[in-house]
């Protein structure tokens, strides 16, 4: 079979792109045509999902090639450097396209209800469609530069959607923060790309995988490439030290938080590491750094999540923490476990965010009905919402059990696999036992803050207010429907890589084998078996159950005051609520010095004084001076001119005659 035959892969990109163009046209000319937008926006993504499924089935068929590549056109040709606009559907990217278009399509549907009364409805769907296009370019790009187009594109869409309600200064600032933080990461990506070209003479992923065996293990080149990739991934996937943009990114509409800042875009870093597994397998030191960053981020963000009162902030730090776990997995060489957790996380975190969206939607309506200005996202204003929102509550409980790692639910299998893989590396390097401990502690924290979130939101007495209670309601079916589908996936998502002890065949592990070939020989994980395996699982489950109960009980025992009556936090709780004051520290030690440098040195000194004053105005003044001198001879007196002419003629004559 010739490559690219069969499923027209370009349709995958064309559908959302067409959706983007149509929605943009509507946004500019007929913004009130919401019906058409509701049809085009989600329709385009669901059509792309159908193509993704077809592509998946084609790869999955017996005897099918490992990958389908389409070359659209030549992009860059300079010397030995040849880059095509080409897309490659292999086992990994096929899985990602399913997640992106599947979860993305459901979130598009949810958005129909959530954004119904927004004036920027068409603009919103245009951005969302564009995001899907770029995300697909990112996962399908066959070489680093093509992937970089998507990488930058999703950053752009993220910026546009965080600042979607740009009328509020804080939202616009949050968008800029995300963009600038990501630029730092992009520097890493670019450097990695240049070094890869320098070292391997190619930027095509397939060729990189092929040539990675030539690399000197732990050599300076491969370590530098891997660390620069890790920097890029830390930016995109919100890891220490570049994570601070993600909590602020919650300024965007909640479905955006679910799609971009939980399920898809932020996992791009994990995807890139797995995509470059050939490089990382040759760079054990850099991998260790990735694992350490992941473990530290997971724990760090988990502790912050304990004391946040904004429902979306809790979920944001939870996302940072879970991404940390994925980083820990891929840093430990457990690429399959990382991707597995990426997929299940996309399911249950989407449920949690969309559920939070439903809650905020209801709370917003309730406060709107009484013209109250109370915070619709503050969990201290909620409580007992189960009475009004039984569906949302039940579905969010499923997702909570999944993220806490309770058996049968999707998160249990993926998180357990990460923990087991990290533990198994401990036999070789003792530091991995420490990472395992940190990850287990993170699991405990995860269960605690999720229990706290659920208890504060759905259980106990309602704190919204007497008058407001009348307006609380369950979300419309267009919102609960997608939530139910995702809830089902959170429940059953573990099936894609059901381990052997549960009677499964670890399908995902076999599916990803061709992609992980370059690292196969180098990273051999000897997974714990028998009693060790069951002891680890038992411990992980125990941690999850204890955490959930702890979190719920802590809320039930304390009496929660609404924000206006709340006593200020003290001690360590204040540090946690203030997110360790990292933003303030960055502001004091990085942002302000950079501002000072930019203003005083670059602007006032170099630009205004040196460039404008000395160089531009200086050269003009100098020439003006020469001009003034010359003009002194222009007296208008014919006699003088003649005299000079004669003197000149005599002089020339003298020279000639000599």
């Amino acid at each position, binding site marked *: 079979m010739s490559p690219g035959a069969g499923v027209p892969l370009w349709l995958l990109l064309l559908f959302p792109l067409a959706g983007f163009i149509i929605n943009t046209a509507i946004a500019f000319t007929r913004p009130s045509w919401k019906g058409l937008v509701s049809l085009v926006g989600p329709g385009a993504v669901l059509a792309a999902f159908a193509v993704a499924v077809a592509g998946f089935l084609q790869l999955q068929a017996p005897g099918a090639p490992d990958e389908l590549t389409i070359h659209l056109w030549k992009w860059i040709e300079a010397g030995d450097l040849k880059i095509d606009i080409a897309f490659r559907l292999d086992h990994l990217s096929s899985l990602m396209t399913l997640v992106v278009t599947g979860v993305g399509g459901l979130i598009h549907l949810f958005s129909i209800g959530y954004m119904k009364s927004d004036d920027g409805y068409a603009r919103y769907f245009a951005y969302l469609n564009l995001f899907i296009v770029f995300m697909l370019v990112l996962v399908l790009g066959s070489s680093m530069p093509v992937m970089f187009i998507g990488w930058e594109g999703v950053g752009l869409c993220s910026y546009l959607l965080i600042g979607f309600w740009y009328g509020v200064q804080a939202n616009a600032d949050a968008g800029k923060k995300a963009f600038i933080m990501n630029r730092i990461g992009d520097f890493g990506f670019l450097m990695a790309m240049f070094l890869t070209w320098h070292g391997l003479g190619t930027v095509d992923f397939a060729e990189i995988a092929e040539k990675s065996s030539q690399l000197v293990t732990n050599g300076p080149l491969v370590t530098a490439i891997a660390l620069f990739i890790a920097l890029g991934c830390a930016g995109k996937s919100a890891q220490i030290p570049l994570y601070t943009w993600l909590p602020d990114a919650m300024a965007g509409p909640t479905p955006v938080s679910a799609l971009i800042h939980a399920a898809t875009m932020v996992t791009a870093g994990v995807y890139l590491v797995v995509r470059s597994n050939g490089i990382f397998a040759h760079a054990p030191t850099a991998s260790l750094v990735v694992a350490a960053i992941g473990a530290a981020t997971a724990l760090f963000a988990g502790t912050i999540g304990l004391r946040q009162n904004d429902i979306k902030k809790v979920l944001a730090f939870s996302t940072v923490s879970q991404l940390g776990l994925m980083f820990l997995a891929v840093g430990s060489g457990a690429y399959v476990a990382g991707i597995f957790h990426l997929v299940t996380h996309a399911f249950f975190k989407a449920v949690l965010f969309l559920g939070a969206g439903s809650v905020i939607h209801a709370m917003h309506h309730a406060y709107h009905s009484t013209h109250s200005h109370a915070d619709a996202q503050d969990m201290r204003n909620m409580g007992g919402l189960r009475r009004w929102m039984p569906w949302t509550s039940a579905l969010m409980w499923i997702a909570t059990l999944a993220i806490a790692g309770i058996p049968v639910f999707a998160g249990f299998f993926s998180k357990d696999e990460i923990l087991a893989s990290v533990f198994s590396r401990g036999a070789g390097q003792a530091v991995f036992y420490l990472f395992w401990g940190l990850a287990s502690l993170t699991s405990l924290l995860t269960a605690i803050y999720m229990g706290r979130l659920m208890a504060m939101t759905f259980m106990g007495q309602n704190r919204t207010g007497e008058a407001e209670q009348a307006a609380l309601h369950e979300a419309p079916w267009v919102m609960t429907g997608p939530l139910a589908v995702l809830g089902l996936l959170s429940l059953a998502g573990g099936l894609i890589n059901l381990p052997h002890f549960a009677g499964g065949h670890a399908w995902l592990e076999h599916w990803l084998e061709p992609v992980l070939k370059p690292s196969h020989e180098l990273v051999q994980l000897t997974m714990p078996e028998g009693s060790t395996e069951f002891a680890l699982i038992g411990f992980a489950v125990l941690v999850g159950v204890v955490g959930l109960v702890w979190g719920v009980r802590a809320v039930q025992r304390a009496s929660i005051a609404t924000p206006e009556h709340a006593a200020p936090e003290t001690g360590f709780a204040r540090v946690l609520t203030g997110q360790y004051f990292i933003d303030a520290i960055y502001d004091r030690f990085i942002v302000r010095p950079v501002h000072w440098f930019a203003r005083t040195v670059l602007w006032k000194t170099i630009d205004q004084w040196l460039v404008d004053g000395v160089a531009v105005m200086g050269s003009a003044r100098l020439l003006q001076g020469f001009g003034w001198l*010359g*003009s*002194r*001879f*222009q*007296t*208008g*007196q*014919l*006699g003088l001119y*003649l*005299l000079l002419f*004669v003197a000149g003629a005599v002089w020339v004559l003298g020279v000639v005659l000599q």
Partner: protein
Amino acid sequence: MAPDLLGPTLALSGILFSIGVLGALLRRNAIILFMCVELMLNAVNLAFVVFARYYGFGGHVLVFFVMTVAAAEAAVGLAIMLALFRHNQTLDLQDINLLHG
């Protein structure tokens, strides 16, 4: 054979040219200046003619050219001066300095 007059004639030509130059430099009246220029042209013509007598006919041809150009120059120059006088009521070159920088 006539006596050899090459040297004296060239000397006369030089004297005439120098008078023209000095006149042009020292006098202020535009008409006088104009006449001085004519004097310089004719001094050169004299040199051409005497050279032509001793070294061939090329000099005669150039003299005719110079005379033609001088005639044209006189026409244009006098017209300019007429216009200048109508405008300024004077032809004193020190009072005419429209081109000063």
